[in-house]
């Protein structure tokens, strides 16, 4: 696969006549690189956001996102459609990010140690982000890694508690506790940003 081929695959994927995700998945199982590029374009921001919530660093997040997609391509034949594709993809992304985190902090022996606060990403990471995104990312940086991931999956990806359990491997009651705790903490941290939301809610 040379550079021209890669560029070609991306160009073709942008005009690929795929209309359904199932169709793309079936094609990827047969090794169709254009269909895989189409899937990547569809999910790259979501995957990047999930791994960034765990790693809180742009460089590590990009590497983990790439690793996730490489694993997805290799393991696609194992995907039988038992769960939603996005749930399967996010579980790979989450495990990959946790594995990167373990490499970065080898002294941490269990997930509880990894769940402690890690400083939020560098300013450069958020240079082009909106004020709202910056404030949210900063507030999520104040939460433990697992809590920030759970709350992101719940509010941003709009996943159910059951789906979050499948992705993270955290028990359902634990997920609910994390959601409750994170909600309370975010309300304190995002008071100013939430005023706008409350104004919108009042109008509703």
């Amino acid at each position: 696969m040379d550079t021209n081929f890669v560029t070609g695959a991306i160009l073709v994927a942008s005009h690929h006549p795929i209309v359904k995700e199932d169709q793309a998945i079936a094609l990827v199982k047969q090794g169709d690189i254009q269909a895989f590029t189409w899937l990547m374009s569809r999910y790259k921001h979501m995957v990047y956001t999930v791994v960034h919530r765990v790693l809180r660093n742009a460089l590590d997040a990009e590497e983990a996102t790439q690793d996730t997609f490489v694993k997805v391509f290799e393991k696609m034949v194992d995907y039988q459609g038992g769960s939603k594709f996005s749930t399967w993809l996010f579980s790979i992304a989450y495990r990959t990010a946790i594995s990167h985190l373990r490499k970065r902090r080898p002294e941490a022996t269990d997930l509880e140690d990894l769940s402690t606060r890690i400083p939020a990403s560098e300013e450069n990471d958020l240079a082009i982000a909106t004020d709202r995104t910056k404030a949210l990312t900063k507030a999520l940086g104040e939460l433990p890694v697992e809590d920030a991931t759970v709350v992101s999956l719940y509010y941003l990806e709009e996943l159910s508690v059951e789906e979050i359990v499948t992705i993270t491997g955290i028990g359902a009651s634990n997920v609910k506790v994390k959601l409750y705790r994170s909600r309370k903490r975010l309300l304190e941290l995002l008071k100013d940003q939430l005023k706008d939301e409350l104004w919108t809610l009042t109008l509703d």
Partner: protein
Amino acid sequence: MDVDPRLNEEGADRALRGLFQKAGHLSAPEGMEARVLNRLAVLPKAVRPASALLPKWAWYALLFALFIPLCVSMGTISDATEPQLSSILLDRMSASTLHSKWVFMGTLCLTALVTLHAAMLRGIRSGR
């Protein structure tokens, strides 16, 4: 905690959901797809077959093909060589199996095929 009193459980939930939705996803770096494709290009090919090389019916057919010479060989054993307790089927079968070249060769071929099949499948799965 100085939080707006309108933020009860449901209100807080809706407000946070709204904020997350408006903030949206973080943007993945430009050109990431190309970098992933470049990495895939240098990976060793590990294409796994969607199904076994020989379908199940082929193995059943082989077993059936082996069963025919077994029956034939059983029928050709002379009564003189049979043990007195001819009602013991197991003895008849073992005697015929041991004496029949057909069965011996059939078993040998089947074993060779199974070994070949397993070796090819392992080779393909490991990307060789």
